[in-house]
């Protein structure tokens, strides 16, 4: 789970890591006021849950409070399309108004779960403010990594190795070690996946300030992190995504016209792939999961069937834990409720498949039964064409 920059900065401040002075604002007037308090010259940062805001025009420097107000007017309510936001883009509802921190140097610091090596890693770079993945290719000698384990945490000598690699001024060295100790403990205590400070600014007076921060938490850890869970922002989710989330459905909206309702993430991906293979475009990824209820199946179906973009649906169920009859019942009651008027191709295999087919067959609704995976895909692609 990603949290907003202003939320991450509040957490860091609490921890004793310096961040720029700043205010959160939701209107141009608030932005103007904040800029005045901060002395006029400020940076405005769109608070959306996505990287790449700068390139998308979501970060603006203003020289005066009036200029800040003007820029805010342009930014607030605007849709930002970033490299990571997906085609729809994200609406800017909040701005973080911050003092400008003049850097003597900018460095990079991150902590991450390295799934390939099955370790945790602390990463620094002598160059901050650039994308670390690009730097890893263009200048790997500018990066240093120390691996560690959750039981032991980052050890003092590892922190020193990183600090001396960065060739910090003496006066910044102790602060850096202090930050790194606090951050690595926080990372472990809060079930994080990624904590990235980029850039970490070294000011002329050797103060260290975390100018930009990204925090990503392990979704599986949220159940024991009430404080972090409470930071979740549902406002960026579409109505369908919210509905899916509240019924524990794994739903990701995409750009196509064929709705997919599948049990199991792998089969759901394969279903999307086969649709594409036969010239269709999936409208979504949807895994109803193993513990799904009849009601949740209905909700899932409604999300697809009521989507204007969706022209036809493919239901592909391989019953294991999930029983086909339960899915069928969910489909039928939902289709009745919404007066289904789109073609739906249904494939049911596995646990209670016969009962499932029977329920659907007796429902007198626009369901097409297909047993073969390939035929089902071909059919739904055909049915989706205008």
């Amino acid at each position, binding site marked *: 789970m990603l949290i907003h920059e202003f939320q991450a900065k509040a957490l860091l401040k609490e921890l004793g890591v310096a961040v720029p002075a700043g205010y959160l604002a939701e209107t141009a007037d608030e932005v103007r006021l904040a800029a005045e308090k901060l002395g006029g010259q400020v940076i405005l940062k769109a608070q959306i849950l996505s990287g790449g805001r700068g390139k998308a025009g979501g970060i603006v420097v203003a020289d005066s409070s009036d200029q800040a107000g003007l820029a805010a007017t342009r930014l607030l309510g605007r849709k930002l399309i970033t490299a990571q936001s997906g085609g729809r883009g994200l609406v800017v509802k909040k701005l973080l108004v911050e003092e400008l921190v003049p850097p003597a140097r900018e460095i990079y610091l991150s902590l991450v*779960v390295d799934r390939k090596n099955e370790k945790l890693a602390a990463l620094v770079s002598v160059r901050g403010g650039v994308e670390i993945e690009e730097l890893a290719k263009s200048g790997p000698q500018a990066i240093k990594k120390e691996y560690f384990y959750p*039981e032991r945490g980052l050890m003092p000598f590892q922190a020193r190795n990183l600090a001396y690699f960065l060739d910090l001024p003496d006066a910044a060295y102790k602060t850096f070690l202090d930050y790194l100790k606090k951050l690595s403990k926080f990372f472990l205590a809060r079930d994080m996946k990624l904590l990235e400070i980029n850039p970490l600014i070294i000011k002329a007076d050797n103060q260290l300030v975390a100018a930009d921060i990204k925090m990503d938490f392990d979704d599986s*850890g949220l159940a024991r992190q009430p404080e972090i869970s409470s930071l979740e922002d549902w406002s960026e989710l579409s109505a369908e995504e919210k509905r899916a989330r509240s019924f524990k459905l794994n739903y990701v909206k995409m750009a196509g016209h064929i709705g997919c309702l599948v049990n199991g993430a*792998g089969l759901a*991906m394969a279903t999307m*792939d086969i649709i*594409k293979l036969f010239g269709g475009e999936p409208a979504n990824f949807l895994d109803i999961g193993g513990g799904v209820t009849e009601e949740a199946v209905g909700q899932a179906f409604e999300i697809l069937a009521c989507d204007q973009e969706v022209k036809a649906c493919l239901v592909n169920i391989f019953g294991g834990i999930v029983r086909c009859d339960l899915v069928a019942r969910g489909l039928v009651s939902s289709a009745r409720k919404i007066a289904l008027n789109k073609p739906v191709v249904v494939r049911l295999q596995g646990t209670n498949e016969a009962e499932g087919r029977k329920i659907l067959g007796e429902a007198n609704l626009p369901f097409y039964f297909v047993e073969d995976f390939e035929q089902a895909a071909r059919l739904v692609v055909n049915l989706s064409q205008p």
Partner: protein
Amino acid sequence: MSILLDRNSRILIQGITGQQASFHTERMLEYGTKVVAGVTPGKGGRLHLGLPVFNTVEQAIRQEAPNISIVFVPPLAAADAVMEAAAGGLKLIVCITEGIPNLDMLKAKRFLAEQGSFLIGPNTPGLISPGQGKAGIMPASIHRPGPVGLISRSGTLTYEAVYQLSQLGLGQSTAIGIGGDPIVGLKFVELLEMFKSDSQTEAVLMIGEIGGQAEEEAAEYLRQSNYPKPVAAYVAGLTAPRGKRLGHAGAIIEGNEGSAQDKVKCLAAAGAKIIENPAWIGQTVRELMTEKKGN
């Protein structure tokens, strides 16, 4: 033969009194699997589904000598249950539970490595050696004994693959779900290595998906080991968008890593037969096996 699980395996169910665990324990028993005991703290001394229930794995091992444990314990207690099984001396632990925090799994894997225990999962349907035993939650009816070793990161897609194989008369030696999480136990490499020396296994089918590097590592292994058995591979998620998690906690293309295209490229270069279409899994494996026999 088969790998990891055979008719002599003695199964322990951790969290046996839970609803899912109860349901699947019954299915395993129906399949003829030797489930010998269960553990649920606080319910020791009872019988459940005719099986003795113990408070601790230690007690269960002392009384019933299981050699495989299947963990159905809730996510925040599951890593501890896995470590309990390893501390008790069990060498194979199958963790069905989904949603275990990453940090818990990192700790558990280190502990298991010290104890010399193997883990399958978490977030896995488990494994089955058709006709011999079932240690997991897959529907038994679709499986047939036979020559194909199956390793998969997925659940229902595995059932689909097994279904296609069995429809064509191709049975399975052992079918294993390695789990859809970012941190899992045994992966393709270790299991390919086991299938290599299993006499029943004539070909291996790998079902991969986006995220992580397990398929790339497998490709590297196939190449370096000059793998002696034919390998077919399907990788799900060719249409997956970057940066979006698709269901499985591990199924996400992060930065420049983990796309299905890359994985397919690596596996093809390593000599695996790539299955382009998820509806052709069975027939591709059949063709592959026929070709190789022809050689």
